[in-house]
């Protein structure tokens, strides 16, 4: 049997196992006595300045002192705020110039996404269930009626806000060079907003939505070439069963398929498309030089005509 190594050093005096454990435990207790209060004191010290902890600095990448640098970093190093520049023209924050309608539209889109997702928990897009689900929402789900009301009115408010936003952009001439393309993205977003609202109209499956969508999609019957009642459609052999309206409704009348289709367009299809265009819209606002004004006035005499 090989000789056991002495754990107590070189002097060769071997100690028993019991002694080893005894001294070890003693040392442990000694260290606890001295180290614990010290570490507790240290922890208490860090609690006094939580912004220096590793957890805090891993989340927030800069200090929070009120310095110009930190104010700028607060915007630039934040994923949700970094679409903003660090500084803007002092006149641009005036409400009377922008009316805040673009931002309000985006906020309403967020409200609608939130309330809409909650509504999806209670709604089945089927002819049997849809109307009952709305009744259930209104009468049994806690705050269900408030939820539905908020979704409805936020949708209407969003249409108003979008139209006012377009109105303001036109009146301030903000679509002019270099913002022509972004105006076009905005027009697409306006159409998508109207389509979002319209596809949602059918979902309660009540008389109001049913007849509104019937009236709306009946117009598609008359699409030139592609609708069975439209001009020149006989050249493409259009019937009620293969025309563009059939494609929209998934049938020749507003029924179960139409309900499902408008549900999918309303909850998945159009929101995703609209989100992509929104990303593009906001990104271009920055790339085209931020919001357009209030700019200094230009006089007619100062315009330099391009040479032809």
């Amino acid at each position, binding site marked *: 049997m090989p000789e056991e190594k002495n754990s107590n050093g070189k002097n060769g005096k071997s100690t028993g196992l019991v002694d080893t454990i005894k001294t070890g435990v003693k040392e442990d207790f000694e260290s606890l006595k001295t180290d614990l209060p010290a570490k507790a004191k240290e922890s208490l010290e860090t609690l006094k300045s939580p912004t220096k902890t590793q957890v805090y600095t891993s989340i927030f990448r800069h200090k929070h002192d009120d310095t110009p640098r930190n*104010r700028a970093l607060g*915007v630039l190093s934040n994923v949700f*705020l970094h679409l903003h520049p*660090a500084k*803007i023209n*002092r006149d641009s*924050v005036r409400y*009377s*110039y922008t*009316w*805040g309608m673009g*931002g*309000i539209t985006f*906020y309403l889109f967020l*409200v609608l996404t939130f309330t809409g997702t909650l509504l999806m928990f209670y709604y089945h897009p089927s002819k049997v269930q849809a109307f009952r689900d709305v009744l259930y929402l209104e009468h049994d789900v806690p705050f269900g009626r*408030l939820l*539905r009301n*908020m979704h*409805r*009115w936020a949708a*209407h*408010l969003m249409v*108003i806000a979008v*139209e006012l936003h377009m109105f303001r952009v*036109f*009146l*301030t*001439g*903000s*679509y*002019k*060079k270099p913002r022509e393309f972004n105006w076009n993205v905005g*027009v697409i977003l306006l159409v998508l907003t*109207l389509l979002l609202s319209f596809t949602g109209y059918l979902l309660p*499956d*009540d*008389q*109001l*939505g*049913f*007849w509104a969508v*019937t009236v709306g999609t009946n*117009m598609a*019957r*008359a*699409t030139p070439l592609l*609708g069975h009642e439209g001009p*020149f459609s006989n050249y493409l052999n259009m019937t009620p069963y293969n025309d563009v309206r059939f494609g929209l409704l998934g049938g020749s009348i*507003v029924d179960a398929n139409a309900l499902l289709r408008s549900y999918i367009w309303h909850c998945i299809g159009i929101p995703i498309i609209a989100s992509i265009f929104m990303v593009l819209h906001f990104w271009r606002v920055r790339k085209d030089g931020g919001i*357009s*004004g*209030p*700019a*200094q*006035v*230009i*006089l*007619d*005499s100062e315009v330099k*005509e391009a040479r032809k």
Partner: protein
Amino acid sequence: MDWKQVWEIISAPDNVPIVAMIPLLAFYIYLAWRQAKANDSLIEQLEADPALAKTHHRKAWPFKPGWQKEVHVWPFLLRVEFLAAIIVTIILMIWSITLNAPLEEPANPNLTMNPAKAPWYFLGLQEMLVYFDPWIAGVVMPTLIIFGLMVIPYIDTNPLGAGYYTWKQRKFAIGTFLFGFIVLWVSMITIGTFIRGPGWQWFWPGQTWDHNRLIYEVNIDLPDFVNRYLPSSLNITSNLAKSIFGAVVVGSFFIVGGLVVHALFRRYNPKNYKRMSLLQYSILMVFFITMIGLPIKMLLRLAFHIKYVWITPWFNV
């Protein structure tokens, strides 16, 4: 005056947005007009005084000494955005607590709603169905509106008025947009919402919606209307003659209208006219004259009971 009827229309939950939008629009037009007026008088002042124009006094809110030209987004913009979000939330909460979203009886294809109305923002297009066939009102017109909006930045060659409110520097552009947005879009929606009752008939505000009302309105086509005033030997009777007549009328509307607009635009907007290429100018003309055609067709229908101007075997205008 049937006040109950008025209240029923105004307080219908889905009509509330358009009831709210009209005063909102009036407020924002006032806000824009006030700023445009301030900028216009500044422009006038600067034009009269070239020395002043060389200074930095180029905004209706002149820069005051001691001000910083730029402010931090955090907190000066973000607090405005945050406040706006709170205010919108409060408005939405109060609105949602006090007014319930409409819910009618379950959908029933056998029981037609009368009037069957589209959502309020499409009522302008539905109102157009009175004056035009569905393929124009429902398909061509929305397409033209979308494309008309999209071409605006490319046909507006006026470099003035970018980034500030003004009226004097952009009379034609702003006038056209106000005409399209307020006179056509918003007032059509208003008519569709408040005036149109059962059977999509015209009911003045305060008139009771009579579901059994019949109107003996005989609408005739323009060739037949013209025939009344022509000696019988010159009457337009055959289908071919009618379609040729309609094509001539519509064509000459575009040609004569184009010439009139050209004469006015060239005189009152010489600089913009000079800047425009042929393509820009013709696109402007097509959209502008088509837009003007809308109220003219409405007038023909409402005042002279004319249904179609141009009749062909394939389509009617």
